[in-house]
Every structure is written in C-alpha cells, then in structure tokens.
C-alpha cells in the first residue's frame, strides 16, 4: 500500500513531527511507500535541499531497519530557472524524486504559483523540457478565496472562506492550461473535495470545441483523502472544530458521501492521506491547517472492505493505480496495519470511527 501524499515536517518544524516519527508511523500503518510533499521548511525546491532530505531519510530508515520506500516531490515556483532545476532533479533522481508539486493556491508554506499567467508559464516550460512525469497540483484558485469570511470564533466558517468554486475554477484552469500547452506529463489533482471539480476533470474525455484533432490527449488523475470522504463541515461547529482545519476545507453533507461513492465506483484514482501534523497549540492559536491522516489509513482500508468494496478495487486505489501512473515498480506487501495508532498524535480527527 502506498500513501502518495504526506507532509513529514522535521527541520525547522521538529515540534510538529520528525522524519523518524513520521516514517515509523507510516510503516506501522502498513504502508510500503510514502511520497513526501515539498513544503517543508526549508522547502524542497532546490537540488541541494532535496539531496539533504534524501540523505536524512535514508539514515532514519537505516536506523529504524524498515524497508519503507521514501519518495518525494520537487516543489515548483514561478521562477523558470528553478523549474528547470526541479525537472533536472526528477530526471536524475527518479524514482526517488517521484514527481513535481505545484501550489496553485496558497496553503501551508510560501510556495504558491497563484496567477493564471504564471501557471501558464509553468506548463509551457514543463512541456518544452518534455517532462513526462506526474505534476501534482493543490487546486484552489487564490482570487476566489474569501479570507474575510473566516471567523476563528466559528471554525465552520473555514468552509465558506475557501468555497467549492475556488477548487472547481482552479481544476478548470489547470486542465485548460495543460491542454493548451500540450503538456506531456500527468496532471494530478491532489485531495479533490467536491463532485463538481470531479465533473470538470472528467470533461477530459470530451474534447473542447475548436480542438485540433492532433492535439495530445491529456492524462489526468485525482486522489481523495479519508477526511474528505468521512468528515463534514458540520463537525466543525463545536469548540474542537479548529482541530479539523484543513485545506481544502471539510465540505458540508452530502458532498463527502458523494466523494466516497466516486472513490468506490472508480472515478477517483486513489487514496492519499494528506497527512499534515500540527501541535494542538498551532491549531488552536495560529489556526494551522492540516490533520494527521496516517494513523487512520489502515482503519480506512478495513472500513472500505467492511462496507463491501471488493479486494481488487482496494488494491487498485491503495497501490496499483499509483504504481502505474508514476511508473514505479513497488511490491504490495498487503501488511495488516496497526489500527491503534491514534495516540501517536495530540488529537484524533477520526475518533468517531472505531476499528
């Protein structure tokens, strides 16, 4: 089983989590591989930092004596030379550098490429370099966010401050820009959270009017987090609601139930946890966004089986599809994860789901 979307902190954020802790929890959760996101502090945007991260992760894995595969994404900024460096790092270090990550809206860390023009440049450069790997994108259109609606006294207002429209518009932008540029890689929409965004993404099969027939078809994928499938905005109404802050936000019912249905029926390609630990203090005082998702991973998989999803489909969304799209060969050990890992973090957003 692979989790292709985790944030492991460490370095200047040792208080939130260390590489050692994160990797050992991932192994206990039954995972064979994790792919780490580049918004560490300092961020994984240059070859030097990436190499340093790889060395440290290797040292941790060696001392823990666990055969976990640690992959990472190189971060993309709006600077052309940096994009070239990231692609070169991917070329040299693949499969260790599994792909690239772009923040099309600001989330945690300061590496957003938020303007549509800047995003267009990214796709052009990547196409020019013949980048054929995965470009994972955090899709929330910055100009449609409504920070004025955010009221820390009412944590549920987070869902209104980052409305579904922002995600839908951003997914639409990415698809259009990638098509325009003739992007040869795979456009991956991270932690998709609304059925409409999925509809926009699915339009990949219907060529837009005026399309040249010789235009390269775009490869598109998306992933769903357990929290966007099982938690809803209504759960943020009480005092502990701040603990559930995450980007994109939890959506109101019935959106989560529809997303889960799409995961089961094959419209969503895989599960990713978007594991992003914070201290309780960071959550309640600086309103940090992100929740620890790794401990729940094994429980989610058991839950899917219990709810009647066939084993073959579970293999697809936890392993096979990820290997195929990233072009990796990894063994699926199908280890039974420890379902009692919630105590590893200061709070458990999935406390209501036993087992």
């Amino acid at each position, binding site marked *: 089983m692979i989790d292709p979307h985790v944030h492991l902190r460490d370095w200047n954020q040792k208080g939130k989590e260390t590489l050692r802790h994160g990797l050992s929890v991932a192994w206990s959760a039954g995972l064979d591989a994790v792919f780490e996101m580049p918004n560490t502090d300092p961020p994984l945007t240059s070859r030097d930092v990436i190499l340093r991260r790889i060395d440290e992760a290797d040292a941790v894995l060696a001392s823990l004596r666990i055969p976990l595969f640690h992959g990472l994404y190189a971060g993309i900024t709006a600077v052309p030379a940096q994009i070239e460096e990231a692609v070169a790092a991917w070329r040299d270090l693949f499969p260790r550098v599994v792909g690239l990550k772009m923040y099309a809206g600001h989330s945690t860390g300061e590496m957003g490429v938020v303007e549509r023009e800047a995003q267009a440049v990214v796709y052009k450069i990547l196409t020019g370099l013949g980048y054929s790997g995965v470009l994972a994108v955090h899709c929330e259109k910055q100009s449609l966010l409504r920070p004025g609606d955010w009221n820390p006294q009412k944590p549920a207002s987070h869902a209104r401050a980052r409305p579904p429209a922002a995600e839908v518009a951003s997914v639409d932008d990415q698809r259009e820009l990638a098509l325009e540029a003739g992007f040869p890689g795979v456009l991956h929409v991270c932690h998709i959270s609304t059925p409409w965004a999925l509809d926009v993404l699915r339009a990949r099969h219907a060529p837009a009017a005026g399309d040249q027939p010789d235009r390269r078809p775009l490869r598109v994928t998306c992933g769903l987090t357990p929290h966007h499938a*099982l938690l809803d905005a209504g759960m943020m109404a009480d005092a502990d609601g701040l603990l559930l802050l995450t980007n994109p936000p939890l959506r109101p019912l019935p959106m989560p*139930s529809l997303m*889960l249905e799409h995961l089961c029926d094959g419209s969503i390609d895989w599960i990713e946890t978007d594991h992003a630990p914070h201290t309780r203090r960071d959550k309640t005082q600086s309103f940090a966004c992100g929740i620890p998702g790794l401990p729940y991973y094994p429980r*989610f998989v058991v*839950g*899917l089986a*219990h*709810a*009647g999803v066939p084993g073959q489909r579970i293999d697809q969304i936890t392993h096979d599809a990820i290997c195929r799209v990233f072009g990796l060969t990894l063994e699926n050990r199908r280890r039974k994860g420890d379902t009692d890992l919630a105590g590893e973090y200061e709070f458990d957003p999935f406390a*209501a*789901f*036993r*087992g």
Partner: protein
Amino acid sequence: MSFRDRDIISITDFSREEILHLCQAGRVMAELEKTGGRNSLRDALKHRTLSYMFYEPSTRTRTSFNTGMRELGGRYDGFSGTEGTSVMKSETVRDTVTMMCANHNDVIVMRHPLDGSLQWAADVANIPVINGGDGKNEHPTQALLDVLTIYALKGGRLDGIRVGFGGDLSHGRTVRSLSLALSHFDGVTIRWAAEDFLGMPQDLAGLLAERGVRVQRETAVRDVMRQVDFYYMTRPQLERMPGVTQKDIMSMMKQYRIDTAKVEGFDVRVLHPLPVNSEIAEIDYRLYFTPAQAFFAQAEFGVFLRKALLHEMLGHDGYCRYDGRLPAELGIGNNRLPRRIRGAKQSAMFIDKIHDGTVIDHLAPGSLRAVSDALDLENRGYSCTTATLPEKRNPFIKTSLPEPSERDLKTVALLSPEPTIDTIAGGRISAKFVYLLCANTNCITRVVNEDVPPRFYRDNGAVRCRYCRRQYTVTSRKVSEEEKSAWVAGLPARIEPVVYPG
C-alpha cells in the same frame, strides 16, 4: 418436524424447535461457504424448479432464493414486476398461481401487495408456497434470516438476547415478524425509540408482553444502544403511508437516525433488513465503515437461510401433483352469520310485500345511494325499492333478485359493513343471515375481482381472518349473543389446509 410440502406463510407457524432447526441448517450452509463447499450440495435439488412471482419490487429476497436454488442444483424461473404478464390483463391471483403449478414447478416464492394473498396462493396451489412478503402483513423468511444472523453472531445463543428497534416499527413487516420469532426464547428484552407515529403498535406490544417478552420504550437512541446486543434499524415505509411526505418523515427521523456518534462506546451490532433509503438516510453512510455495521453480513445470511429452507423443503425426490383440478372448497366461505327466522313485524310505513326476492337491511346511514348504484339492479332486470323507515336510521333495499351472488354481497359489504340479508321464497323468509367481511382494508378478501371467499378461524378466544390473520369482531347489533357464539363455535380452530382431490 418436517418442512416437506409445507407452506411458509407466517412466522407464527414456527415453533421454537423449528426456528432453532433452521438456524442450525443455515449455519451449516454458512460453514460450507466458508470452507469452499458452496456447490457441495449441487445435486440435492437437481431437476427441481422454483417459480418466483414478484408483484412488487424486490432485490434481496428474489435473488437470494434464486442463488440458493442454483447452488443446490435446481433451476428458477418466474416474473419480477407484473409488466409483461397477464396480470396486466386483470388475471386473478388464483389463475396466475394455478398456471405456475401447471408449469411443472416444485415450489413458489411470491410477493404481493395485498395482505393475506399468500395464504390464498397457498390454498390455490398444490405445491408448497413461500411467502416473500404480503402487503404489510408478513415476511417470514426475513424474520428467520434475522434470527439466524443473531444466532450466528452470538455463537448459537438466542435465550436472553437484548434487541433494540428503531426507524419505522409501525408500517413495516420486519419488526413484527422478528419480535414474534424472538418471543419463543427465554428472557428476551426489546427496547425501542421512535416518534409516536412510527412507534411500536399497541397490539404487538401486548402480544409480546403476553408471550413473556420485556418491552421497554426509551426516549433516546443512545439509551437503547447502551442496553442491547443488536440494534435493528428499519426504513420508514413511505409507500405504506398515504398522505405523508418525505419531508415529514425526515423531521420525524431527525433524532433517530443512526450515525457513528450514536454507537460510539457501545458493543452493539446494527442490523437492517435493507434497503436503506438514501434520501432519508436512516443510517449515516459512515456507519458502514465501523465494525458496528452488520447488515451486509445479515444480507448474506439471507442466502444461507433460504438455501437451507429450500433444502429442507424439497430435498427429496419430488413429483408434480398438478392435475388441473381445483378443490371445490376453495369457493366456500364461512362468513355467513345465520339468524333465527321469526315472524315479520308490522311496519308503520306501508311497503309492497314481495313474493320472491331479497331484502338487504340495516345498511349504514348514507350508504344507500352508493349500494344501489353498485348493485345496478334495475338495469339487470330486477325490481328495486329503497327506503328508510321513519322510526329507524338504517336504510334498506327490497328487490326481486331471487338470490344475491357472492359478488353482490361483497359489493354491499364493502360499502356498508355487515349487511343483513333476508331471502324470501313463496312469500316466506327462506334464509336470514349477516354477511361478514374482514375489516382490514388491504386484505385480499376485500378485492372483488380476486374472488376470494372470506373465511375465519378461531385463535384461542379471538376470531381471525384466515388470509391476513387480522382479528375480527362482529359489531352488528342485529345478532344475538347466542347466534354469535354458535357461529364462532362452528369455526375451525386453526388454518386447516385445503384438501386436494386425488
């Protein structure tokens, strides 16, 4: 104990031993499945055929019977939904069932919207009939599979079981059937929480208390969850609540929906006969993920139970008994309450005496016009005098119709309950009786075209309809107590099977 050639109509027909026997047989089927022996009985019902007749939608009941038949080496055929059958041309249940017998089938599984239709089908058919649900009356194999699920998940124990009920206890069949099945066992406790409108019917609560079941109402779902081993949730049966909208039900169900917060911290398994209504969402989709969810396992036990039942019923060499004849007794009802013939009283109002004909008397006030229109006597060539005597409230009809047909009587009784009939021959009263018709408006005996003769039987002190088994009380004040008790004494003391010729 034998299930061979037996009709499976009501859960109340099963004894404690029979229920336990079927549970054990069902568990054997489950064990076979687990150990890879799904098809190890594939010759058991070779050349036997099941006919399914589903007048109403069904997913699980039909397919699980078919699966059971297939895995036992038999075949199945039939219809699901009446479109494409002669039911669309107003064919009666009797004729349709007879056709299924004529088609060399060995067993019938049927679901029908009218209460009591399955007892009627069993009367008509000369092969065993299994009730797959008749109106809001009974669904015995659902109750048996629910019991099997509890039995299996509790490691073969049913005594002292604690079950909670929720959702719609009033309009569905499953709560009634399951709780009656459980009432055979010792120390059973039932707790429930629901809005009054959807709550447990009084008669059921009384029946359960009589049979030694402890029934307790709680105000909150969590109070129930805390004190039970199983929570049996049901779908609000909107299709059986005319005039109630989905919105009404949503607001009634608001605090009774089952989600993860309701079961948190308790060791309880949630059962549900399925389907879950996705609009009302009486069960939150996230509960599917928790180990409390046991209704998918329950649905699979349905296959094991039905497979075991078919094996018990047909697992010997069979024969088809169809010879095209229906027993004469099918056309005879026992619903005529005879009255003693005394001398005629003098009336203040002068009405022509009739020499030969019928007097239909004591009609309900205001029903005269509807009854005379429905009988349409004048167009049929008979005289028809209608009147309401000044000293009485009830109207009557005098006609030259020599003897009213069963159809005429039923038509009258539907519009005006318990009409009094006097037939007159040669200027003298030749017969005097009250025509009784089951009071359950959804009973098959009340559908004129189905032509089912109303029949009653004695059940301890009560009189019940043979078909829908609803209790019946004679209300007509024109009958003396001794006439009533003489009639009751003459009724059969149980539902006697129809005897086939040959």
